[in-house]
């Protein structure tokens, strides 16, 4: 109880503290009142008739009851939505497993880990797209809502990681100046332009660059663009890790007779990755959140399916409900990633002490 009373005493310890307390208290009360009134006081509960939503200004549960499935899966064939759910579940499991691997709660050997990832991604694509093993084919334009969001985010991050490693290694070395120059230019340009321009390049320019007559659907085109875009960011995080290693590591490895690839693969890279994990997690959170920008080029992620849900003439005024639902999903999933990031940061700081 002493800490609570000390805390309460701090609230008005000095005139400045008192002013700040009153100002932020007033703001929080104002905000809290609005939130409470929208979520509870003015809310229309699931068992109430939907017509009440036109009268009361709060959260309209009947809308969410009817539209949640649409927001989650969009136009994915209704009977096959179990496949989309299974694919999402699989991808989320992969993500959680990776999180545990990062903070050391799961300790899979690297090769097993990579194999699980490849198998998981393949299976997810198979579940979503079908066309084999007796699963009927679903074109990628129908992969909507939650599945496409996590598929694009996770596949892009997974694909961008090796790209980032190669770019970081190319930029970090001294032996091949031209290679280093190329990597530097690539990284700096990719980091200097908005992600939307890169998505546009993927959707509009990439098809032009393919041989005449070949066709690439928007989803794979955007995936390619995202991989090359995030790769540049990961490269910079990893380069930070590589640069923080002491020269002694490299010298010790080569005095043991290890060549470049052995030194890199067995000695430097594992340490560099561990050291750059906190900043990598930050980049991953950014990449995941920014995946929602694909809505601009007509890929129906959750923001787009949310729009579908309130474009229904019966539910025109329920836009906020739909967006808050999507926001809640992002908030929870990002909070999980942030928690991992904080954990890594803490470990990092205790290591340094």
């Amino acid at each position, binding site marked *: 109880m002493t800490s609570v009373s000390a805390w309460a005493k701090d609230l008005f310890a000095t005139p400045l503290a*008192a002013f700040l307390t009153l100002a*932020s208290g007033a703001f*929080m009360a104002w905000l809290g009142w609005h939130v409470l009134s929208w979520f509870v006081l003015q809310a229309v509960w699931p068992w109430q008739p939907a017509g009440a939503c036109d009268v009361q200004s709060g959260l309209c549960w009947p809308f969410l009851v009817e539209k949640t499935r649409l927001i989650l899966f969009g136009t994915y064939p209704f009977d096959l939505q179990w496949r989309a759910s299974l694919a999402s579940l699989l991808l989320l499991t992969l993500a959680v497993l990776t999180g545990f691997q990062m903070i050391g709660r799961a300790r899979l050997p690297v090769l097993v880990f990579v194999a699980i990832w490849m198998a998981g991604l393949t299976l997810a694509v198979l579940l979503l797209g079908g066309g084999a093993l007796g699963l009927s084919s679903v074109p990628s334009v129908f992969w909507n809502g939650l599945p496409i969001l996590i598929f694009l985010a996770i596949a892009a991050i997974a694909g961008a990681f090796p790209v980032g490693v190669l770019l970081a290694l190319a930029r970090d070395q001294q032996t091949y100046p031209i290679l280093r120059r190329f990597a530097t230019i690539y990284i700096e340009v990719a980091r200097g332009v908005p992600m939307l321009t890169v998505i546009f390049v993927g959707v509009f320019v990439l098809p032009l660059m393919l041989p005449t007559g070949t066709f690439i659907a928007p989803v794979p085109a955007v995936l390619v663009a995202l991989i090359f875009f995030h790769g540049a960011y990961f490269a910079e995080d990893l380069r930070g890790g590589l640069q923080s290693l002491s020269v002694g590591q490299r010298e010790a490895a080569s005095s043991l007779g290890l060549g470049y690839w052995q030194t890199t693969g067995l000695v430097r890279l594992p340490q560099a990755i561990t050291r750059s994990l906190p900043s990598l997690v930050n980049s991953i959170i950014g990449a995941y959140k920014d995946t929602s920008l694909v809505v601009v080029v007509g890929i129906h992620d959750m923001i787009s399916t949310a729009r579908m849900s309130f474009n229904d003439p019966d539910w025109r005024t329920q836009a906020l409900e739909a967006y808050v639902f*999507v926001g809640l999903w*992002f908030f929870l999933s*990002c909070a999980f990633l942030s928690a991992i990031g904080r954990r890594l940061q803490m470990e990092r700081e205790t290591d340094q002490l």
Partner: protein
Amino acid sequence: MPRTFRIWDAVAVVILFGLAVLLVRNVLLNMQDAGLEPGFGFLLGQAGFDVSESLIPYSPDDSYARVVLTGLINTIVLAGVSLVLATVLGVVGGLVSVGPSPAGRMLASGYVELFRNLPKILVLLIFFVVAVNGLPPVREAISLGPVHISNRALYLPTLEWDRLLWAPILSVLLAAAIAIGWRRWVLVRFARTGQLGPIAPVTVGVLIGLPLLAVVVSDVPIIPSTPELQGFDFQGGVRVSLQFAVMAAMLGLYHGAQITEVVRGGIQSVPRGQFEAASALGLDRRRTMRLVVLPQVLRIVIPPMNNQYVNLIKNTSVGIAVGYSDLMSVVGTVINQTFRPLEMMLVTMGLYLLLCVAVTSLLNQWNATLRRREGKP
């Protein structure tokens, strides 16, 4: 060292060259199929579409080049306004989050957490939906004195433009130059003779006095232009579109949250000993902050701020989602009309790069000045 054959350099050159040749060949063939000649000549053609807002005279009869310029100017203005907003919010947030009040600290960390865990496009759309549904139509606009708010736009009072207004505007610049010069001279004299002169009073005096003098001498007519409801819309004053307001609010709050963290980290990284040493020297709280802590915070904070500003500029491109006519959004329309994605994307990415490089080099220069002042290389 003997020049060795650098195998991976050669491989990189060969692969990239080969790839470039292949891609260019494909692009040329594809464009030929579509009956297009690659090149930038089409930029002079008539655009034929209108933009939601423009700060330079623009009509659909103008060229594609002009519409791109319109978008670029919109992007720059939006970035400038949001940059100031985000910085103010971030500095206030950062100070509150290390401040003496626990309630303030709680609010600041809640603010940071909320915006860290939401995608900016979702924040933008939520703001937009709330503004469009929550605010009244133009004819029933909320009026706060001369400011009017509707679900289409914000209407602010301004001054009736007159050519003579250049006099006070230029006099402000002149006053700033004089103030900087005076400050430098005082400091130089202080270093030489140990005599201190007044800096703050002279600065304030010049900055207020000179423009006032300019107004009186030039006899410029000061006529306020206030927005008045006439028919279906407001006349007079300045109209700030809802899209712009929502974009600025989103960018300000989103990056303000990140800058809050930057500022908090910067202040917390100043060792306790610095505070103690300053108070041992007899400096009061204000001087400790101004002379000891802030210069160090500034140095730590500039590189991450640089990052934030570049990200903010890039994030203005999200405006396309609410139909704000920024660079990205007009380019999207131009691509749809002309089917010239390659040329347009080269132009667009080049322009964004240029903007980012400009801001970065400006801040880097300032950083270098600060370091030099501290005698660091």
